[in-house]
């Protein structure tokens, strides 16, 4: 994270203030603040899976978490592709709404959960499907696994 910020922030004084915030007791809280997010850009990734055009929107908050955890865009795109292929193979139609995808990154072999919102599907008009990507619980040591099974 700090290495990334050093490349983004030319103002050494500003960088020093942010470094202090991140190293402080409230560093994890500081990461969630909206004024911290402008240092992270949102991005759109277009890809074609099974002849369908998809547009993944990675918001600034998600980008920040990806950088924090060393998760590349390629890893996220790979999981999304596997998700689409899994749904096709299992005859599950992807519809508008929220999905939680439990996975592992192929390169890091670590559990990685993607939470996505399928915002729009408009096959008829030939428009891209749009999906917003969030990174869910990625670090198992800090994650509370929820089970309702008795």
């Amino acid at each position: 994270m700090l290495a990334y910020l050093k490349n983004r922030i030319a103002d050494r004084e500003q960088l020093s203030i942010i470094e202090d915030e991140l190293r402080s007791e409230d560093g994890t809280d500081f990461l969630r603040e909206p004024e911290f997010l402008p240092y992270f850009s949102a991005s759109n990734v277009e890809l074609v899976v099974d002849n369908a055009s998809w547009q993944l929107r990675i918001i600034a908050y998600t980008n920040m978490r990806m950088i924090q955890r060393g998760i590349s865009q390629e890893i996220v795109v790979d999981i999304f592709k596997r998700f689409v292929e899994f749904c096709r193979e299992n005859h599950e139609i992807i519809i508008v709404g929220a999905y939680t995808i439990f996975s592992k990154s192929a390169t890091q072999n670590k559990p990685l959960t993607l939470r996505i919102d399928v915002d729009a599907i408009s096959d008829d008009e030939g428009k891209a499907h749009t999906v917003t990507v969030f990174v869910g619980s990625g670090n198992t040591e800090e994650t509370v696994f929820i089970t309702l099974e008795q």
Partner: protein
Amino acid sequence: MIIENFIESTQNLTVPERREVLARLLAEQQGEEFGTIWKSVRFSKNLRVIAYTPEQEKFVEEVNKLLQQGALVRIENQADGTCEIYGKERTFYATISEKSELVGLLSSWSLDNPPREINLTGIS
């Protein structure tokens, strides 16, 4: 016994569907007994609710009001502060900072349309 019967009656639901139902009907302490982390939160008027996606902007006021009245949340990741906030008819996925009274809205869904869960962990 009533609670056991009630939980038994939700066995045919998917896990996300059960969460939507149980979160609204089980008390915090009872929820913990089933291995979940449920927590009730209540914020002051200093609460800041911010939409981190444009789609959530229309829910800012609703979440602000909800959390000032007090609501049940399920913690997903303590380090990130990510959790699900259970409203009356809608669930919100957000990052919460209790100390600085900040809620960043990421996603939301209606009670009858919880997230579908796909498990790819065993698939290469």
